[in-house]
């Protein structure tokens, strides 16, 4: 039972988060051993910055992806601080951006993917972070993730969770000689009609670009053309473009290889003991050796956040070891939180955290300007329009 002891450790972590956010932990100092770094570095830096007002700390509005924070993590935060965490969910960066752009207000913390953040900063939707108030974040950030985030100085954002794009595959259906750790698997004749690609312009064109040896964010028309040709070569094998049901289909053996997100696939592989979902040893997740895309979701502070103090406390809280561990087990992907990663079961850590030798292969998706996006859109239209499998 991994989660039964969670409440206890989370309390300890919370006390540390509070200390780092500048308020006195209610249950004494017995937790000093839990997060000595956060305790010592943060407590001093953040003293007097956030004190929960008398009678509770109010409401914290979080705008995020669904199922993105472990429920007991949120519950503990609410209880200990006497606050209310209200979570609203979006299903794409574009939907979130449109909502804010149209005048959506009232959120404190938002978790867009990193490539969206620069745009949001430019539009004045988010504010610069007060570097003094994210001490625990700085203290616990796992520097091995530095190459995967756009802004290691945390000017506007604090990274929360990372997703890699690779293949969900059925181990016994991969034909002899085919290499699932390569984009070339998509061209494998034997898998005709058993492959799905994501219904995502950046991921599919990114696959084409990486397979042809280009940068995943290439804007050169010649490179994009090569990528299109590559994808069109794969297309006869591809059953459909789909971002939602591929994990179900791989699990039910309707699809043998599905381009997909590591967090989604990990949930299928690991299962959920509590929910009675058995682990699936026959499903694997593979990352192409030519390179693969990475998307980091990061916490940002809305420019009209009403409860910034509580938001900073929340960010520091997410960076506590026990909290990060619980969240990682819940979402099936790594948080860049050193103590949290160290606390994971070794097997699980191996499954979700990228080994050091693969790090250079992880290519971060970056925001494209309008001209480049225009090229991408045209390429995407061609890919979609050209006849595939019947």
């Amino acid at each position, binding site marked *: 039972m991994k989660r039964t002891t969670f409440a206890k450790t989370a309390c300890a972590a919370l006390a540390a988060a509070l200390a780092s956010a500048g308020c006195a932990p209610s249950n004494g100092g017995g937790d000093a051993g839990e997060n000595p770094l956060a305790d010592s570095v943060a407590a001093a830096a953040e003293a007097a910055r956030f004190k929960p007002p008398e009678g509770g700390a109010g*409401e914290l*509005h979080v*705008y995020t*992806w*669904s*199922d993105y924070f472990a*429920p*007991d993590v949120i*519950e503990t935060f609410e209880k200990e601080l006497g606050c209310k965490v*209200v*979570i*609203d*969910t*979006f*299903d794409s960066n574009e*939907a979130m951006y449109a*909502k804010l752009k*149209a*005048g*959506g*207000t*009232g*959120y404190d913390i938002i978790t867009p993917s990193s490539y969206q953040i620069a745009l949001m900063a430019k539009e004045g939707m988010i504010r610069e972070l007060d570097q003094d108030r994210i001490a625990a974040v700085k203290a616990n950030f796992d520097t091995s993730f530095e190459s995967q985030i756009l802004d290691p100085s945390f000017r506007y954002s604090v990274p929360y969770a990372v997703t890699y794009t690779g293949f969900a595959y059925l181990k016994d259906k991969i034909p002899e000689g085919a290499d699932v750790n390569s984009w070339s698997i998509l061209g494998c004749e034997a898998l005709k009609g058993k492959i799905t690609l994501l219904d995502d312009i950046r991921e599919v064109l990114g696959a084409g670009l990486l397979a042809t040896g280009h940068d995943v964010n290439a804007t050169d028309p010649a490179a994009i053309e090569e990528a299109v040709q590559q994808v069109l070569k794969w297309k006869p094998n591809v059953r459909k473009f789909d*971002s*939602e049901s591929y*994990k*179900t289909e791989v*699990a*039910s053996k309707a699809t043998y290889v599905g381009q997909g997100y590591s967090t*989604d696939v990990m*949930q*299928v592989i690991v*299962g*959920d003991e509590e*929910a*009675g*979902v*058995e682990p*699936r*040893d*026959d*499903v694997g997740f593979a990352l192409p050796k030519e390179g693969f895309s990475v998307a980091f979701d990061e916490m940002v502070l809305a420019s009209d956040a009403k409860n910034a103090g509580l938001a900073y406390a929340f960010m520091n809280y997410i960076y506590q070891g026990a909290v990060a561990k619980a969240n990682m087990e819940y979402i099936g992907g790594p948080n860049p939180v050193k103590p949290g990663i160290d606390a994971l079961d070794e097997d699980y850590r191996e499954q979700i955290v990228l080994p050091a030798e693969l790090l250079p292969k992880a290519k971060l998706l970056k925001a494209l300007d309008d001209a480049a996006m225009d090229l991408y859109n045209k390429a995407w239209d061609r890919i979609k329009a050209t006849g595939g499998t019947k």
Partner: protein
Amino acid sequence: MKRSYFSVAVLALVVAFLYVPIVLVFVYAFVPNGITMSFHKANGEFIGFTGRWYAQIFRGDYALKDLMQSFWLSLKVAGLATLVSCVLGTTAALALHRWRGRLQSIHHALVYTPLIMPDILIGISLLMLFVACRVDCGFWTILIAHVTFCVSYVVMTILARLQDFDDRLIEAAYDLGAGPWYTFFKVELPLLMPGIVAGGLLAFTLSIDDVVITSFVNGAGTNTFPTYVNSMVKHSKNLPSVFALSTLMLIFTCVLVGLSKLITGGQQQQKKGKTK
């Protein structure tokens, strides 16, 4: 007589298209594996059904806190929107029925437009209005938006009812010495009640499943049930809970409709008995 297989086939297809999806929702509310949405193990072995998702709802599971919150919010919005639009709708319909003129035809057109205006236009224009007035989007803006489109439906239903309304009944009431208020509450309102109830039911159903307009005018922390479900469909592993909750809603609605049929049916029986 020869039975036409064609018409039977058409009937079967129509029934299938209408009801198979609902049956699927009902069945998948019992799915044991919320991640893969499968009743089978990896080796094809049948696992069986689970009542876990229903249990989660009735237990008030923390993971479903936001879902349940959105559900209650939806009920609250729909209830209030129905009430407000029934009152406004009745007065508007009476005014439209009683007085005719150029202004009234404009009034009629104004009330009628939301019926044919695309939801997305209503949503975005309301949002622009709220932003221009610097109103923070939230419960009240959702309520206002819902009343805006519900009122039209209520007015139209009541107007239909008013078409075969016998105006001599009002004259008779006046003749017998009743004042305008007394006439309204004792004669007109009871006669219009079936129309108002029908309009109200329509308003309630429209309000409770509106996604497009609500997604424009809701604010932080005010997700209604449909908008919340809409945002969790792609990622959430608690999806079967939504199926379970939807099934419960369906049963609740069926009971409600059944009851109203029973009541109105009973009334009609009584009426028939009286006229004989």
